[in-house]
């Protein structure tokens, strides 16, 4: 009888949340005892392992703050010598620049997803500064207090 090895995949989890830190997400994965490799980074986590396990882990992490945790595939496994900074003498790894640019937009994308979830209709672009809504102010205060 031959055993077929399951395909290994890697996912990049980018955390742009006020409630969840990369370390919290990493601890959650350690607790879950899935056979995956986790690497904590400045923007979130890199998870490598058998496809089914990685997909389940990623879904669990996403549920921690689903509109502010973003996930994408990655070609190279975590800690791969061809990409890892430890073996390349430092500096940002190839592919990080684009990620860094996108990370700047993530708070706005997350807020838009929150609004979409609340089923708010698409607002027309307003010219000039308008009055701040009470609900928006509450959201800002909550975000600041959560830090």
């Amino acid at each position, binding site marked *: 009888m031959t055993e077929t090895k399951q395909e290994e995949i890697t996912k*990049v989890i980018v955390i742009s949340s006020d409630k969840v830190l990369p370390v919290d997400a990493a601890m959650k994965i350690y607790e879950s005892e899935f056979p995956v490799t986790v690497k904590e980074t400045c923007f979130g986590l890199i998870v490598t392992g058998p496809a089914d396990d990685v997909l389940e882990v990623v879904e669990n992490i996403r549920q921690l703050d689903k509109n502010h945790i973003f*996930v994408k*595939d990655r*070609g190279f496994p975590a800690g791969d010598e061809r990409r890892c900074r430890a073996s390349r003498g430092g500096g940002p790894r190839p592919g990080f620049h*684009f990620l860094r*640019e996108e990370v700047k937009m993530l708070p706005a994308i997350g*807020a838009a997803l929150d*609004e979409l979830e609340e089923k708010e209709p*698409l607002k027309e*672009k307003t010219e000039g500064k308008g009055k701040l809504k009470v609900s928006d102010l509450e959201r800002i205060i909550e975000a600041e207090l959560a830090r």
Partner: protein
Amino acid sequence: MAKVFIYPVNSLILADLVERYGHKPLAVMNQVREKVTNISLDSPPVNITPEDPKIGLRYAAVEVPPGVRGRMALIGPLIEETEAAIIVENPPTNFGCVGCNRTNELMKYLVREKEVPTLEVVYPESEEDAREFVYKIAAFLESLPKEKDKVGEKKGEEKVEEEKAEGQEEEQ
């Protein structure tokens, strides 16, 4: 579940949104994974096989710079699978592996030629733009056929086959 081609091909935001709405993003990362984790390749990090230049030649002529053909060897097969596409104009960074403008133009041209449902949006630069960006993409993705529809179709096909089989049994 539709296979959605995304441009920029390695975008985190687009890949995430497509997956969030139950579709499959056709991103270049999966193609790269096949290249870099395949043990049959002789000499990583030179991850190219004799087949790759031939695949690239399907999309760009031999006079075209090899970089275009090399990139198309990865991206071309994705375009062939495409069932829908999201193209973001003016992304902030176009350097590195996605920095070849000729490849990007060719890629967008091939997607438009395919005449699949395509959404073209501008990369957001403010919160207001981001809201509009997400709303447009969400509406587009929700309009695409979901997995259930295809399952329903399959079930319908199975039913027809079962009825045919029953009919044949009765005849016998």
